């Protein structure tokens, strides 16, 4: 009888030891992994204020936010109407223009192609918006993906108008 009880007790002890050991190992490894994540100094640079008073309609500026280019485009009436009249069924990543530009005159986007991270060129491509030279993605005047390998529209960062002439990104 004792022969049968003993191994069970041992099995329990082994399993318990392995479990505690694995948890301990995991806890020890996590700092080694997590140190590679964005650190406090990187996260601290999370907002940028931009003065947009000098931008003419149809012009675009690029500013750097978190190491990434941000496109701030003051769109013309023509560009806005072109972006608005697109049928959502024709889009790979359907999104209304009015959801992308709070104020239709101003389009603020992260200028990073959603394919593999290149910076698209302005006023280029088949949809007169942006064109990524790396792998050929075409975006329209609302920054929406229309053609090419990119899976989603150009991302809209968190931003707000602090006053008429200043945009705070982040």
């Amino acid at each position, binding site marked *: 009888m004792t022969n049968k009880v003993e191994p069970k007790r041992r099995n329990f002890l082994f399993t318990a030891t392995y479990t505690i050991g694995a948890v301990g190992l995991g806890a020890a490894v996590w700092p080694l*992994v997590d140190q*590679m*994540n*964005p*650190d406090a100094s*990187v996260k601290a640079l999370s907002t940028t204020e931009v003065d947009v008073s000098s931008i003419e309609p149809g012009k675009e500026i*690029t500013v*750097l936010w*978190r*190491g*990434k*280019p941000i496109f701030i485009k003051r769109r013309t009436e023509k560009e806005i109407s072109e972006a608005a009249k697109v049928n959502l069924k024709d889009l790979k990543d359907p999104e209304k223009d009015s959801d992308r530009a709070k104020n239709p005159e101003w389009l603020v986007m992260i200028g*990073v192609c959603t*394919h*593999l*991270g*290149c*910076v698209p*060129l302005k006023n280029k491509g088949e949809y007169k918006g942006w064109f*990524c*030279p*790396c*792998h*050929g993605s075409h975006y329209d005047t609302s920054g929406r993906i229309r053609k090419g*390998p*990119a*899976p989603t529209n150009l991302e809209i960062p968190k931003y707000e108008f602090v006053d008429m002439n200043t945009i705070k990104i982040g």
Partner: protein
Amino acid sequence: MSEEKYVPKTKLAEWFDSRLPLLSLSHHLKSYPTPKNLNYWWTFGGILTFCLITQIVTGIILAMHYVAHTEHAFASIEHIMRDVNYGWLMRYVHSNGASMFFLAVYIHIFRGLYFGSYKAPREMIWIIGLAIYLLMMATAFMGYVLPWGQMSFWGATVITNLFSAIPLIGESVTNWLWGGFSVDNPTLNRFYSLHYLLPFLIFGLVILHIWSLHIPGNNNPVGIDVKKGSNETMPFHPYMVMKDLLALLAFLLLFFAFVFFMPDFLGHPDNYIPADPLITPAHIVPEWYLLPFYAILRAIPSKLGGVIFMFASIFVLVGLPWLDSSKVRSATFRPIYRKFFWVLVVTVILLGYLGAKPPEGIYLILARIGTAYYFIHFLILLPLLGRYEKTEPLPLSISDPVLDKPGAMDKLKEMAGKYEGENVATFK
């Protein structure tokens, strides 16, 4: 010639070897039996060892002068090129050395493909070799980022963004790799750390690669098992050592033709422009040795799909020893495989060419055909050939293909006679 056991000649050697058998190991490395029919395609193992050591030595030297910081990296490379004594030489040997390393490894891999060196009992050599190849690509990629030029920056951006294709966790993974929200100083620092580390892991794997080779012994151009302990093998030293050295000298001519006469030929001029996160160069191309994979990535019209196919194109090779079920190793005796082998070589070179071209029009169509053929070759043709190909009869000995040629024996006897006199009746 068979391998005899090491017998210590002195008391001291015996004392030492019984405690740490380094003398036995050195004796084994010298007397390791190699098939006597190995051709020059078999010299690339030695050449690759040379390349690895050259990269490590020049790399350690460059690390003494390089600064891994986004604001200083580009300038420190120019400092190496202009100010450091022989800095230009160290850097050009290191940067061209990477290309030469890949040239040699591709020849080495295609040698294995042609002569069936991946087949039983040599699967482990093949798989460890692929692990080395993967680490080489990672190391080369991270090394290319260090000068912090435009191609460095945008190459790093594109390649790290491959991981953003992973569903759900993609963005967290890329932020973790970058240590930020884009490629920046933390990225440069960790790439430098890993670029220094990985070659030593490669070195360790090379030891395993050679160890796993020394158990079954070398394959050979005829692809049949050699009889160990017969006159079919020769000791590694001096016979193979001399052959390897001659091949290495020829290889060095090419290597240093690049280093001295066209050191930037294989690089990209855009990398002499400091990195600018706001401007992407018009044509981002990786270094030539990664182009076939880049072509596969771009051939698939979906982000995740492209990434999956690109990684699959390498991992499919792990399954090769089982996908190719033919019992005959050498393509010399496989008339149909031999043709498809060359089609594969042409396909890979074509994909490399297409990887450097913009992904549009005819280039894109050809890249898709090439990608399809690449996978068809490994996943469909090889299993079918293994089953249906009618192979040519194998010789009984590796000597037969040489000696069976008409008049071959007479010619050999005549040649031997010049050295050893007319009495060569016992010559074989």
